């Protein structure tokens, strides 16, 4: 018997920011969209995130950051994924990201930036369209 392939997404909050409303809502929403969401919650170090992404073989990594530390933290996550041969895993960033930083993040290699008001369906579709079918 073959099970349907499920899309797996890691949702994590790097750094010390404790406002997890957005991350939780996205986690519930993606679950209801049929995804398997590995939710690791608050205070994830970039090292933890990279490791989790690889062990769980996720199709996308979602970072939620509202503390303003998004440049440093995202940069480090991307670096670690690259070092561990997983730069093909798309990284999405959500939260409080000023316009100019959004562009900088994309230049760094972030696949998409999703700020407040983005419908969950849009995020789900984006992830689904970036999944490499194995």
């Amino acid at each position, binding site marked *: 018997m073959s099970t349907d392939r499920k899309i797996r997404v890691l949702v994590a909050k790097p*750094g*010390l*920011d*404790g*406002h*997890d*409303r957005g991350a*939780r*809502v996205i*986690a*519930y*929403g993606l679950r209801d969209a049929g995804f398997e969401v590995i*939710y690791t*919650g*608050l*205070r994830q*170090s*970039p090292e933890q995130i990279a490791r989790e992404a690889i062990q769980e073989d996720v199709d996308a990594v979602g970072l939620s950051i509202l*503390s*303003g*530390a*998004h*440049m*440093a*933290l995202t940069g*480090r996550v991307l670096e670690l994924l690259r070092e561990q041969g997983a730069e093909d895993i798309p990284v999405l960033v959500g939260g*409080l*990201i*000023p316009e100019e930083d959004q562009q900088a993040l994309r230049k760094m290699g972030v696949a998409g930036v999703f*700020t*407040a*008001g983005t*419908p*969950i*369906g849009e995020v789900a579709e984006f992830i689904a369209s970036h999944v490499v079918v194995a």
Partner: protein
Amino acid sequence: MERTRKEIERAEASWKEEVVEPRVARFKIPASPTRFYTPASQRDFDFLEKVGFPGQYPFTAGNHAFEAWRAYAEAGARLGVRPDYGASSAGRYGGYGTAEDYRDYLRAMQQRGSRGGPNVAFDLVTQCGFDSDSPNALGEVGRVGVAIDTYRDFRVIYEAFTGERDIDQVASNFTINAPCAIILAMLAALAEERGIPLAKLRGTPQNDILKEFIARGTYIYPPRESMRLFRDTLVFCRRHMPRMNVNSIGGYHIREAGATREQDLAFSLANGIAYLKEGVEAGLEIDDFASKFTFNAFGGSMQVYHEIAFQRAARRMWARIVKERFGATDPHAMMVRQPIGAHVGCTSTTLQRPLNNIARSVIGGMACGMSGGSMPAAYPPYDEPLGLGHSQESIQLQLDATRIMIYEAGISDVADPWAGSYFMESLTDEIESAAAEEVDRIESMGGAVGAIENGYMPRAVAQSAYERQKRVEQMEDFVVGVNCFTGENELDLSLNRGVEKLYDPEHLRSAEERQLAKLAAVKRERSQGDVSRSLRALEQSAKDPEASVMPALIDCVKSEATLQEMCDVMRGVFGEAEPTKL
């Protein structure tokens, strides 16, 4: 003579049949989109019991006959006084970078006429009990607030408060929760150093750890152990800093995290009850310490009527709890003392077409003006969701909107204008009864601590947040410019102007580097022996549940132990909190 209830009910029934139904049929809609309330809408409305008078129990109509700010409103207008805070209140909430950066900012504000004390935002590293050289600090040093690693840093802030503005002349606010005891210890050490009696100090530490588990996430120790630290700060404040407020209980954060109005109220009350119990169990007199409890603000929303009813219900419920459950007799112990009343909440503002947030904030101010309490502030400034800080322009617009409501619209000229309204009293009762049910449920779980340990409160909030998201996405709730009226014919008004910063962003970028250098210097220069000794003593007192950690913390602070060193000792004794599973 009043009509009987039966007469009104009969009249209402025939009105529905003769006037409403035909109209509903004519417009071909399932039901009437509006409601109408009559005297029959409420059962047993006892004015004196439910409302009473402003300034008297149960304070439904307001804490005071009139608010202090209202007494001087006209005079203030004639003198053009900017509400940039007298000495009796803390200044504008702020803080960033190193303590030097923040001190310089405070001095700049003082140049512009600010007379308030420091209203300190700490960076997340400090809030979570880490030092700037911790691996956890990556990207976070000095970002959402000022970096405080040692007493040396803390002292630097207060270089802006000397002479006539010394610490006994201004109020200090600290938005700090898990390591609150340490910050208070630093304040005590500073007062001692300056020869200022602790009894003269004024201010408010946030010190509301329970909401951290529910909504804000900057906790360190498990809930029970955290309450022990609260107890120690409470007793210390009452004994040594009697003019300090003890806490700032924040329903605001809970609502912003997605809670419903009723959950905001219930969870805040449950938390408040837990804190009150700590005081009682520590042997303090309820009238004495409850009068030093404050509320940060409850949350808000765009639903004007509901937020007015909410404030009334909140005041009444807290008063009842403190008086009837805890036996208080001093009215000041029963009041909801909060610096902000009703408002719309930051999560009600939109990134899309941000100028609309002005209209939104005015609605919040109107709700405040009509439900009593603080000045009807048009909060937040419209550029809140941009994440770039508030510009001078948005602050000016906020101030003017507030002034227009007060002086042109006269919104604060009547205390509790909705008192006795059939609608508003029903709504107030409804909110109260829903919240009371929640409070009972939480009490049955062992109170706020139990309802955190079993994950109930954090999960309930996450669930409500999700439900709101779904309602918005399915257009059951409308958000203008976000999920409706977004067509191509709408003007997508965006902001093109740069935002004048009150501080130098370059400076912020170098903060981490500078802070690390300072921290290294402290570690080099201090006496390691003194530090080790003081940390050992801290461990001893932490291990003894009857002891207070405050004296040991003050010694640690003076020996220049770092914040993380102190927190780590306590981590060793108390353990660390577990995150809540979804």
